């Protein structure tokens, strides 16, 4: 066998790679094959490239897992979907709870405002009632002078204060009853 003159590999390397990946023309392939017969450098290079190609192909191949893999994937999806449904249901419940809590809080705020208003109403009513009591004590002063004398002159004050306390108690009771949903 006639050995070709030693040469730099770079001159042939691209052609050898093209030969290997099938992109070389038929004429080029014939030329490379003829050259490789006589050139140990290119022969070794081609052998090395073929080895790498074979090893990579073998490394990337491997048996197909087939339908078993598909079943495992579909099962994983089913689990995910069930989890997804459960999560969606939980989200819906949580959302409803949040809406309920918001409505309840709004109601509480309104009720508290009503209580305050009722308390003011009760105090106002007590004050008005006390004033009426005082006026009555003045208007019917003559008729009750005897009673006033008997009470030692404190009757209008006692009457006004008593009426106011009663009105206050009634107003407070009404407010509390409303807050607790009894009224």
């Amino acid at each position, binding site marked *: 066998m006639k050995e070709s003159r030693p040469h730099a590999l770079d001159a042939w390397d691209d052609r050898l790679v093209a030969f290997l*990946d099938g992109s070389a023309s038929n004429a080029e392939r014939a030329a490379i094959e003829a050259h490789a017969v006589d050139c140990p450098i290119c022969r070794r290079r081609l052998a*090395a490239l073929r080895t790498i190609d074979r090893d990579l192909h073998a*490394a990337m*191949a491997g048996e197909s897992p087939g339908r078993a893999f*598909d079943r495992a994937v579909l099962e994983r999806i089913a689990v995910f979907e069930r989890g997804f449904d459960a999560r969606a249901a939980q989200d819906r419940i949580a959302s409803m709870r949040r809406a309920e809590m918001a409505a309840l809080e709004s109601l509480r705020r309104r009720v508290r405002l009503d209580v305050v208003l009722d308390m003011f109403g009760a105090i106002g009513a007590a004050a008005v009632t006390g004033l009426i009591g005082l006026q009555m004590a003045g208007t019917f002063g003559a008729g009750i002078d005897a009673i006033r004398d008997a009470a030692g002159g404190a009757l209008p004050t006692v009457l006004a204060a008593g009426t106011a306390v009663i009105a206050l108690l009634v107003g407070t009771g009404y407010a509390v009853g409303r807050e607790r949903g009894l009224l």
Partner: protein
Amino acid sequence: MDDAIRAALARGEHREAFEMLLPLYRDRVLRLVRGMLRDRTLAEDVAQDIFLRIWRALPGFAGRASLGTWVYAIARNACLSELRKRRPEISLERNEGDSAGPAFEPVAPDQDDTATRSVLDVLDRLPARQREVVLLYYVEDRSVEQTAAVLDAPVGTVKALLHRARKRLVQLVDESAEVNA
């Protein structure tokens, strides 16, 4: 088949589309994941997870990229996440021309034969783009055209990357052999 899948998606029939997609891409995704992770047991688990991701993302598939490109992008990202979880200190996006250390490393050596392990070891030392092209080229049964379609890159670019990758692999294998000699 891609057209049939796209048509099913256009009709909103996601399950039908997925059931066509799964057997079509199953082996190729699994090979790609094996190539990237180098752990067969883990690869199968990760590949199943990739198809779950695909299932979840399928209604949002816009159809701008090819289906293969989209599937492989999800697979690649899942592999990188898996590798990142195990080796957070490793740079995952090293590009061509970078010379420091491997761009990513397998999570654990697989029980392949020595030659296979050797070539995969050196494959890890290629720049990211070259390595990706090599992996896809072999996943796609040595089809440059398919690899180019998946990467949405010109055929000439893929050929050039493959060309450089092969030359570099030969060098790396030789160096590795000299070190081990």
